């Protein structure tokens, strides 16, 4: 009898736990078109950008841009910064400027169809700089070894509280089976070995982060960010094949802008099965002047920014070399013709006549040509 109970209980639990959540194809049942404003002004002296887009339905892949709008930012000391649209939907300030503490900034937008929008008055947040960005070898929750990238920050004045992080990763790629020569098909249908026409041994790739990572020190005794995980890179990621650099941008946010982004994130991250937070429209600090019920998305923020870049080599952190997956093969002439025509392989070795197999040893292109995974132009900031 006991056995039966055990058996049944297990089957029950399996059924409960296996089938709770399933993906389904959501369709937009009713679409609502609204203006989306992306406006972050910082204390960096530069041409600032403001992006205007519209909401889009699930069936579309990207937003429509809002073109032809007039955008200005006014300050409490009667400065006005005008923006003009250089690329469609992206409005750039006509002069360089930086946000100053103690001043109030107000954003005004007038769209092509005559609708007006205005933001609440906003001040520059407290300025605090990043202490340290560093990399450590870690094993994540799934047991994968890799590199954790962390940030430390500390504000002795205890005024920063709300932190947002964005970052840009740049990494060097060294193709392990690069040779000076390449294999091409000549006009007579045979193979020719020719020197490579461009740099294909060392390349660089830059990836800009999406979204903003949020953390706060509300509950802490000190305004201290300690070992905040910016990114985890598994050890088989190409980004840490040789040398890696990350530029971390730290925004000190206002409580309101922080909360706006936090709630949006909460609405679009995994929810507890049993309790779901109430989603809905989140009020922004930008309003429609004409119709108080019109929805406006996005937030006008005037945030201080602090940046820090670090470089490191793979071997500085990890003990194992990058596990390139490169199979050197010597296909038959026919097969090789197809592979070369499709640019799938690069030359490793031209075999002396009389050896078995095909005439050339070749390797998957990614192992011999770095332009497959990056650009062959070295960025200005790069330090080897």
């Amino acid at each position, binding site marked *: 009898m006991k056995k039966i*109970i055990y058996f*049944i*209980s*297990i089957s*029950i*639990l399996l*059924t*409960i*736990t296996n*089938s*709770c*959540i399933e*993906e*389904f194809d*959501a369709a*937009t*049942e*009713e*679409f*609502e078109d609204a203006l989306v404003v*992306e406006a972050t002004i910082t204390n960096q002296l530069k041409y600032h950008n403001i992006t205007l*887009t*519209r*909401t*889009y*339905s*699930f069936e579309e892949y990207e*937003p429509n841009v809002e073109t032809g709008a007039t955008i200005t930012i006014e300050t409490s000391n009667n400065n006005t910064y005008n923006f003009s649209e250089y690329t469609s939907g992206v409005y750039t300030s006509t002069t360089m400027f930086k946000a100053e503490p103690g001043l109030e900034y107000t954003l005004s937008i007038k769209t092509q169809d005559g609708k007006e929008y205005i933001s609440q008055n906003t001040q520059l947040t407290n300025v605090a700089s990043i202490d340290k960005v560093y990399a450590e070898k870690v094993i994540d929750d799934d047991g994968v070894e890799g590199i954790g990238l962390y940030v430390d920050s500390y504000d002795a004045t205890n005024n920063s509280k709300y932190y947002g992080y964005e970052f840009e990763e740049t990494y060097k790629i060294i193709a392990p089976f690069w040779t000076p020569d390449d294999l091409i098909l000549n006009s007579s249908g045979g193979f020719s070995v020719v020197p490579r026409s461009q740099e294909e041994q060392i390349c660089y790739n830059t990836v800009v982060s*999406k*979204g*903003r990572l949020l953390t706060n020190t509300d*509950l*802490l*005794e*000190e305004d*201290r960010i*300690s*070992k905040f995980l910016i990114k985890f890179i598994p050890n088989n990621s190409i980004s840490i094949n040789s040398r890696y650099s990350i530029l971390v941008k730290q925004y000190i946010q206002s409580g309101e802008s922080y*909360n706006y*982004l936090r709630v*949006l994130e*909460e609405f*679009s*991250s*995994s*929810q507890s*099965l*049993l*309790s*779901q*937070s*109430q*989603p*809905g429209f*989140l*009020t922004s600090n930008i*309003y429609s002047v004409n119709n108080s*019920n019109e929805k406006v*998305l*996005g937030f006008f923020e005037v945030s201080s920014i602090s940046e820090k870049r670090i470089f490191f080599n793979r071997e500085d952190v990890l003990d194992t070399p990058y596990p390139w997956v490169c199979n050197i093969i010597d296909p038959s002439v026919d097969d090789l013709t197809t592979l070369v025509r499709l640019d799938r392989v690069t030359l490793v070795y031209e075999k002396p006549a009389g050896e078995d197999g095909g005439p050339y040893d070749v390797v998957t292109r990614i192992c011999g040509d770095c332009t497959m995974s990056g650009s062959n132009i070295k960025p200005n900031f790069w330090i080897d």
Partner: protein
Amino acid sequence: MKKHIFFVLFFCAYLTNAQQKITLTYTDLTRVEVIKKIEEKSSYRFYYVKDWLKDKTLVSGSFIDKDLSDVLNNLFNGTLVNYYIHTENKVILSLNSVIHTSFPNLVWAETKEQKETNNNQKSTPIFYSEVAKDKLSNSKIIRIGKESKNSTKKEYTLKGYAKNVTTGELIPNLALVVKNTNLSAVTNENGFYSIKLPIGVNEIEATSLGYTNLKQTIIIYNNGKHNFLLKESSVLLDELIIEAGRDKNVNEAITGVSSIKIQNIKNIPLILGERDILKVATALPGIKKAGEGSAGFNVRGGKEDQNLILLDDAVLYNPSHFFGIFSGINPFTAGDVDIYKGSIPSEFGGRLSSVFNIKTKESDFNEFKGEAAIGPVTSNLALQIPIVKEKASLIVGGRGTYSNWILDLLEDENLKNSSASFYDTNLKYTHKLSDNDKLEVSGYYSNDSFSITSDSLQTYSNRLLSVKWNHKFNEKNSGDLIIANSEYKFNLDFDENSINDFELDYRITETELKLKMKYLANEKHKFEYGVSNKLFNVSPGNIKPKGTQSIVSVFDTPKERGLESALFFSDNFKVNKKLLLNLGFRLSLFTALGPSSQNVYDPSLPKNESSILEVKDFGNNEVIKTYGGPEIRSSVRYALTPSFSIKAGFDNTYQYIHTLSNNTTASPTDTWRLSSLNIKPQQANQLSFGLFKNINGNEYELSLESYYKTSKNILDYKVGANLLLNQNIESDILQGKGKAYGVEFLVKKNKGRLNGWFGYSYSRSFIQLDSEFGEERVNNGNFFPTNFDKPHDLNIIANYKITRRYSVSANFSYQTGRPVTYPIGSFLLNGEERVLYSDRNKFRIPDYFRLDIGFNVEGNHKIKKPGHGFWNISVYNVLGRNNPYSVFFVTEAGEIKAYKSSIFAFPIPTITYNISF
């Protein structure tokens, strides 16, 4: 044709005057000895049955030269014996009856009923007409009281107790029905009854669930006492009935009441082996849950926090385990539940929508008893322990889960790290201090702990304690003095070995002192009145660092205190046979007490940090704000026929305590907060109307009820509100109007092989959150459906008895899908795709339906066996329908994905074994 046997004796009057004078002194003799003495001293001879004088009371007396009648009057004073002095010095004694000296002007045939025409007569003699016994009534004839020659009353009061003949246990809710009349009575919770009966022969039928019916012929001569001794039915309660007192549904004035007896839900299909009285409640029209995994109930369109759940008079803040999948009420120790969803008796207050009044069973006073169950997820044990025979006893119960080992067996990494367990224990001690005093002490403790991720642990617990002293002052006045204390707390531990590790606590305690008096003034008026005082202490959130490296600062959200006081009064006023009024009134008052700091906001601006004008500080016990008002709780019943009545009711209620939750459904971490300077009490008015009809006794009970409810200051929240550890909570709170209406239809079949019920309700529930400020408006300030607005709700519960031992049962449930807020578009922000949501609750998840079946096997009915076993095999959700509970949208790698979740998407078989001993 009934055979009448008359043994009225009649004699000539003149003979009684010639008496011998008697001189007699006796001390400490039995009456039989006195009679012997009289016989020695005189020529009188006595004729009687020895049994009548078997009473061994000793009497004393001294008579010098007195008439025999004086001596005998004295001798038989206080007994049921009458005498008649015949000529020839014969004295005939009789029990109860008076031997009449003249023959009344009655025709023989009329003796069966006492005719009104006799009311001029000094006394109506009672002719004992023994009705030919029908075969069921094997009982003797019972004579009550001593007939009095001088009485003019035509009605006398019979009272007493109903008792279990074997255990001596008192039987509440026993219906006493007088055949061929409209008279009936029901024993109260202490098994006591009182009924006015016409003099003469009354045939009384006593019926109660679980006992064999008893028919007794009672001859009423005078006021008297009689205890009904009933035998338990050989099969314990095998019907599936919701009932209290026969025809109570039709006869009571109040509307919107449901009673559930735990014993009667034994055969309903189970989920994971748990019999659940509160889940059965949700199968009744008007009581709903937002979803399978949501804690709390929505009664007649009210929020989850608007229900007063009382366990032995103490408030149970969270009546559920494991997010509402299991109930916190132990089915082995629970007795009855009365659910008031329409007219709420004036003694209860402080919540808008309903009262769930749960009583723990009274333990057996004479015999040790136990009950145990083994299920796949939980086990349960309850014991009834007599402490002092007939006087004091204790019932204890305990339940626990052992589900963790199952989670450990699973391969999924996340589930391996998660755990969930709960237990609860309760006890009730009853002591009959005297015939008029009874003391009850109850205690309850429940604890839940679960961790969804490996680095966090959540626990919550309820603790209840109550003491009730019931005192009967006299026949008409009785009272209850109640002291109850409850505590609810939860705790969140976060431990990932970082500087952010913390421990967060929430706690609410309340202590109530209540005096409730009953005064049964007369046939027409029954009064209840009293006073209650309740002190709340809330500590809305404390956080402290956990571990040595944590730099989390200690933070206490300021504590809240409040006092809720009430005076209540009600009169159950029987205007006439047809019209019954229940006039109730409650005056409630809430005082928010310091110490506290309260923000004063600029009324011309939306409430937020920048619109604070000043911060007012209040000292210890200083009054911050007082709210309150009169609450009317009245209803009326008009009986069209004895089994068909119409009822109407009007009720209003105040609620001073609120839960804060920014989830779509209730969860254990919702915090209760008190009304304050900036949070107003919630208020509701309900108008209800109902038709009630019983067919064939109460074999079928039909009811059709409707209600219309408006409420104000219902709490809701701004989107994305942060409710925990928020010092300016009022700036995230919105208070709005509510509106709910509905029609509820219920048919119950209480008897027969097939029994159960069919319930359907159509109901709507709306809320409006409007303000002059855009950020305090939801859905443009229009009414919108609440999260639990499920218009169609249909439930069928059926149980079919195949034989005495085998029965099958089924449970079908259908509901409109609940409203959800659905994405209506995407947008891109900082390079990430986000969703724009519709107006709140504009869409609905698919409709919910579910069928469960159960098969029950009772143990054999041999008398000599160690215990009585009971098997239940249930399959929950036989159709395997995937009923979505919620939908949500996740941004994964910059793209939106839609998910729907369900709690029990597959058929879930369970087998449970119960044993009672």
